[in-house]
């Protein structure tokens, strides 16, 4: 995903290869027809030149998926999804793209401007067909060399399957098995691409991964798969997503992210999610059903999830930590904002297995308009987890009298030396508070910023600096006119 020119060339070459691989189908050249069956999965696997084990794995997932029904326990509501009405494979560049910025929705451009996104990035984000190579690509190449010299693998998932099949085979599905849940199982069957990171023993990755590549990541598709492995003593910070609203006509997104931290390793995973939330009436918008899970597989491993979720019509995700190694640490920091008709059901699971494992959860939900925001979390201390510690802080900020804010924590403790604490509060920001701040000379925008940033500061401080600045702007833009 890091190298668009080569990747496109690669895809074209593979598509051209199709006949050689013996697939004689009457489909369009680059898009598999709508619908899902074993042939489609074989086709995806073949187009990606995958080894046998990958195809087997996908097929097992698909067969398992057929036995499942869509979960109904979350507090999100949406019309039924027709899984046979989706293209499960389409090569990049098949979509109609605007020729220049004049063809792009002015509302979108206005938002880019407010977020302070550089001009050339705006074109890329809006999906304009850009042929020019921007600076970031050469920057990317520079960093790629540096990563290679340290033995760090950072490439697209497809490339990893080709170049590092043993690593993929060893770790894929080891944290989120293909049987895990409806959406993860679907992803396992049909995922098209994603990212792969391997940081070798004792190596500290010297830069935030993906900051410099984010623009090029836009075509990862709706079924994305990310696998990050930090070997013993390694450290990596990975950034996913982008503050700019991404247009994407795929309504359903079902990504899977697996993190594996071995002994003394540390993985920090930060997300800013700002996909199209639908219009003010709730039409359109992305359904984002994500399975993210990390495993602290060795002693003293440390996994930290930070997320700022402002986009999508529906967000359904629970980045979780399995704290298997003794003294391992799991963290979850989240800001989820719902405005208009957005719905978010998000939280985390902290599974304490090892001794002296610690976890900490900070969740900040902001509900405005008719938005609905639910925190759903599980803290589980198994009988083996002596001296486990958890602290959960779960706060809701309510900004309109039509919005909804829910808190659903599950605490299950099976060891007498564990200490688990959960606290939740709600607070209201309305006209009165706004007037108070304005009477001190703050503009309405500054007042909202101050309130929201104050409310979210515990989470923002976990984000890499530049990401944090962008996230603050993003919340302000997302909340314009929301108070009342």
């Amino acid at each position, binding site marked *: 995903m890091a190298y668009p020119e080569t990747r496109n060339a690669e895809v074209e070459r593979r598509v051209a290869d199709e006949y050689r691989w013996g697939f004689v189908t009457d489909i369009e050249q680059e898009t598999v027809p709508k619908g899902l069956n074993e042939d489609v999965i074989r086709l995806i696997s073949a187009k990606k030149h995958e080894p046998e084990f990958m195809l087997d794995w996908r097929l097992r997932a698909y067969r398992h998926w057929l036995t499942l029904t869509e979960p109904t326990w979350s507090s999100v509501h949406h019309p039924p999804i027709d899984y046979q009405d989706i293209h499960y494979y389409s090569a990049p560049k098949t979509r109609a793209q605007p020729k220049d910025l004049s063809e792009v929705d002015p509302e979108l451009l206005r938002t880019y401007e407010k977020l302070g996104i550089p001009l050339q990035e705006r074109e890329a984000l809006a999906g304009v067909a850009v042929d020019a190579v921007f600076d970031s690509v050469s920057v990317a190449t520079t960093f790629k060399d540096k990563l290679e010299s340290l033995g760090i693998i950072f490439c697209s998932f497809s490339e990893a399957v080709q170049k590092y099949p043993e690593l993929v085979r060893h770790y894929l599905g080891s944290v989120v098995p293909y049987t895990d849940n409806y959406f993860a199982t679907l992803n396992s069957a049909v995922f098209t691409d994603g990212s792969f990171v391997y940081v070798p023993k004792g190596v500290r990755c010297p830069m935030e991964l993906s900051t410099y590549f984010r623009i090029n990541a836009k075509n990862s598709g709706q079924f994305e798969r990310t696998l990050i492995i930090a070997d013993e003593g390694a450290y990596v910070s990975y950034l996913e997503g982008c503050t700019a609203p991404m247009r994407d006509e795929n309504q359903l997104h079902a990504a899977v992210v697996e993190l594996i931290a071995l002994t003394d390793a540390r993985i920090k995973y930060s997300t800013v999610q700002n996909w199209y939330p639908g219009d003010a009436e709730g039409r359109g918008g992305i359904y984002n059903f994500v399975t993210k899970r990390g495993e602290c597989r060795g002693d003293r491993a440390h996994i930290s999830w930070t997320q700022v979720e402002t986009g999508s019509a529906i967000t359904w995700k629970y980045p979780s930590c399995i704290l298997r190694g003794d003294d391992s640490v799991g963290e979850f920091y989240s800001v989820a904002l719902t405005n208009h008709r957005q719905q978010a059901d998000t939280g985390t699971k902290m599974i304490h297995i090892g001794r002296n494992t610690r976890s900490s959860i900070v969740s900040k939900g902001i509900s405005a308009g008719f938005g609905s925001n639910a925190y759903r979390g599980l803290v589980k201390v198994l009988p083996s987890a002596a001296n486990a510690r958890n602290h959960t802080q779960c706060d809701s900020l309510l900004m309109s009298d039509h919005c909804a804010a829910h808190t659903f924590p599950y*605490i299950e403790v099976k060891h007498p030396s564990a200490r688990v604490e959960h606290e939740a509060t709600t607070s209201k920001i309305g006209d009165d508070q706004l007037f108070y701040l304005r009477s001190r000379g703050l503009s309405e925008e500054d007042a909202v910023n101050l309130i929201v940033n104050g409310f979210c500061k515990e989470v923002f401080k976990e984000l890499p600096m530049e990401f944090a600045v962008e996230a603050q702007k993003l919340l302000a833009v997302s909340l314009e006119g929301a108070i009342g």
Partner: protein
Amino acid sequence: MNSFTMSQALVNTRSSLRLMPVRRAALEQFIAHGLPTSHEEDWKYTSLGHLEKTEWHTPEGAPIVSNVVLGTEEYPGEVMHFSNGHLNEASPQACYARSLAKQADSAPVVQHLDTLTRATALTQLNSALWQDGLFLHVSTKDTSADASAPLFAVYSAGEAGAMLHLRNLIVLEAGAEMLLVEHYRGTPDLAYWNNPVTEIVLGEGARLTHLKLTEDSAAATHTGLTVVQQARDSCYRALSVNLGGRLLRQDVEVNLMGDGAECRLDGLFIADARRHIDQHLHIEHAASHTTSRQAWRGIAAGRGRGIFDARVVVQPDAQHADAQQASANLLLSPHAEIDVKPQLEIYTNDVQCGHGAAVGQLDEAQIFYLRSRGISADVARALLLRGFADAALGLLKDTGLAEWLEPHLTAALPRLEQERAA
């Protein structure tokens, strides 16, 4: 459990004819759907599988109650004594407290009975098979009801294999006040099943203080529901003290329907030995300026398991609702378990809501402090444990019942210490 024994139990109700069609319909519903299973979110932590496997019967009539069952308990107030599901004829009856079976066709019963419960399997079974229970009706004019003099409803179980579907209806009309104590108990180590349903209707400004002590036998199952509906400015204060049974499942639902209504649900549970105690509280704020408070303390030891599941819903029109939940739990043994699920569902903005939940142990620093003052470790633990439990018992101060409850508590707590040591 099969449909034949159930039909037999239906005959045993000797019900008012008016209620027979309702009972039959409820029983059919129950038989069609069966007991809840752990696939249901509300039953995630509790299995009723053992109830399916047992042949339960309902007792035929009020037996003579022996002192073995009753013990020497002295109750500081009026007593309504139900044994094996029937009102003991010897029980004194205050004019406002009667047998529900005998009053089944009276106007207030016709008006209120079965109006509050949701159709869950266990309430349907109770609606179908109840034999008797307390009918407490305090009208505004009733001067004989003294809010400071408690009425004790004592439910004793003394028949093996009996299922006791007690049904209580409590109606406090506008401005009425009452102090009610329910005490569930049974012959030690006897296997029986208590499945009581209590419906409480509070009129405008009515105030009910409600203590519920469960001390069922160590082999008993208790599945109980209390459902409350509150009119404007009414006040419901409840304290549950759950110390007994093999399996106890207690549901409390409070509907704050009128502006300014408030409720306070406090509780203490001790899940030691192999005891499984599962408490579900559900409070609906359906009007403005409504207030709810929950303060619960739980202790799990031995192979015990305690579950505290509390849900507060603030409906869209319930502006200025104020809801606070607190659940603190001690886990004292490697084989015990505590599961806590405090939930807030808020559909409006002008509210003050919060909850806190914690699971932990006695503070070693505090124990050390006490020991450094010359107190033995065991005594120090007992003191701290008692202090922990007392934090949930604030309501007792107002009711003057602390002295009555004291021996029940002290009997429950030392057991715990032995468990811990074992």
